[in-house]
């Protein structure tokens, strides 16, 4: 796995990605600090992402081969189409519920619960099925690194996720066409940005679960249930930490748990996006969790000690 990254070309590419990443971060930070222009940040984010993917593709020549196969298999998978249908119907229903606000902020917030159930169903088969049918053997005995394998699959799922998200542009059009004041375009942009970030987080989490499961259904159920619990945690946890007049040991423990809970509850990190605020800290939260799970997935694939 480190073969490429320790080579000269690998180091150059790593450096390039880092520089780009930092640059993108700086630009994003500047915008949040000065202008609060989520649309620009969304565009900047997408450009940086595309550049990173292009660079990664240059560095890992097999990456896109795997991505392409993944996308192809999504389009041939009935589960993926069912997921798409459920996702879009749920999106429409939520949109209708909050229509009176003429805004998609709340829609994005409640979309996260739909995603908790649908995204793990997209990723569940990605590695578990390869293992079950044995195709992992031909895949990992081809000259493919584990990083290429995991990233390629992740990108494939991400592209399909974007494809699922595409028809929701119709709702944006509806808001522009029928709302007298017009929607808050910053809120729209930041909402989509948040959804993309949450998607990256959930897709990588699902991919990791798929890499450790023998049965794809286990990966889906564990993924959905854990994400749903986190969603509930975010919903029911009070907005403010428990107040106590005197700091006792017990109140400190309570406060610690509260902070841990509100850190893990991803809706807390999503909320600013649905209000039209872009916080670079929240971007970092989602991306670092995505990177963390991708890393775990790579580690799981590398230590293939199953029979």
């Amino acid at each position, binding site marked *: 796995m480190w073969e490429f990254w320790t080579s000269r070309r690998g180091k150059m590419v790593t450096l390039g990605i880092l520089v780009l990443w930092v640059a993108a971060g700086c630009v994003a930070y500047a915008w949040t600090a000065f202008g609060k222009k989520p649309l620009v940040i969304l565009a900047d984010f997408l450009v940086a992402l595309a550049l990173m993917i292009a660079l990664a593709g240059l560095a890992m020549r097999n990456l896109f081969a795997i991505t392409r196969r993944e996308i192809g298999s999504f389009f041939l998978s009935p589960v993926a189409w069912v997921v798409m249908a459920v996702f879009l119907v749920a999106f429409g229903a939520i949109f209708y519920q909050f229509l009176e606000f003429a805004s998609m902020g709340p829609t994005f917030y409640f979309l996260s619960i739909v995603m908790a159930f649908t995204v793990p169903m997209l990723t569940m088969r990605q590695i578990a099925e390869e293992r079950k049918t*044995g195709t992992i053997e031909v*895949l990992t005995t081809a000259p493919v690194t584990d990083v290429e394998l995991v990233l390629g699959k992740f990108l494939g799922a991400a592209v399909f996720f974007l494809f699922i998200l595409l028809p929701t542009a119709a709702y944006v059009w509806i808001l522009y066409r029928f709302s007298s004041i017009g929607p808050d375009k910053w809120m729209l942009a930041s909402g989509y940005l948040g959804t993309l970030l949450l998607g990256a987080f959930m897709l990588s989490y699902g991919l990791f679960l798929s890499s450790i499961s023998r049965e794809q259904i286990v990966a889906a159920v564990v993924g959905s249930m854990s994400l749903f619990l986190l969603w509930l945690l975010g919903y029911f946890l009070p907005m403010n930490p428990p107040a106590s007049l005197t700091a006792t040991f017990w109140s400190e423990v309570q406060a610690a748990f509260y902070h841990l809970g509100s850190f893990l509850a991803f809706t807390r990190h999503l909320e600013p996006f649905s209000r039209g605020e872009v916080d670079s800290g929240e971007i970092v939260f989602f991306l670092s969790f995505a990177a963390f799970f991708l890393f775990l997935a790579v580690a799981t694939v590398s230590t293939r000690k199953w029979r």
Partner: protein
Amino acid sequence: MIQAKNLVKTFGETLAVDHASFHVSEGQIVGFLGPNGAGKTTTLRILTCFMPANEGTATVGSYDVHDEPVAVRRIIGYLPENVPLYAEMKVREYLAYRARLKGIRPRRERQRRVGEAMGRCRVTEVERKQCGQLSKGYRQRVGLADALIHDPKILILDEPTIGLDPNQIRETRRIIKELGSKHTVLLSTHILPEVEMICDHVIIIHEGKIAATGTPAELKQKYSRTSDILLEAEGPQDRIEQTLVAIDGVTSVKRRMEEGRSVFRIETRGQADLRSVISKRLAEKGWPVLELHRRTATLEDIFVSITMREE
């Protein structure tokens, strides 16, 4: 070309490969023999970098399987035991994908290689079928086409002829023999006549240990302790039998009826060829010899004697 030193692989409590050491020289076709569960597949999986060994080292080409797995994978073509394929992909599409993974660029070259491999393995007629709908024979051949699509230096084939019909088996053997002229081939099998037909060298593995290595001729020399002679002669059968028993080197003589003729099965000690002595003796007595045939141990006998010995 392939060098394995003291490979050990355990699965929990069971020892699948037990200090296996062997080597395969360039340009050889080597048969990897062993009963089911002897550790053939596991050894091949270690060589193809699918699984790490618990102990020991292996080099393929000049690369270590542990340190440079991607370099190893680049120079090998591997056909796994049950030929896993993506069920939803079409044959041509699958092979093009595999060619791309194996670094064949540009696209035109890829298409050429795919066409060539399909022609060679006779799967062109199913190129538009989904892999999941293929019969066992076609699956096997699509797997073989995948293994040789990038013209690898080393081919590692895990039971390449299993599940094929006799014609396909012959065809596959022909392909393997043809490949053997330019490539190094390591193939596992438990079909013994196949090994005698195509392999230059044999490695017999039993309970995870390398039990014997050598050319088929060497193994026969080494492991056959007795040989049989079959004789059919005209004359008084009882007296013929007495004459045969009296010959030095004969350990036993059995008479049995075969299709209405009586045939003697003479077991002899060691490698000595007693055919000339027998025919002389019978000629002296005036009994014409109708058939005299020496049967040396086949690879099958050797395989059985090696793999049954320890029980």
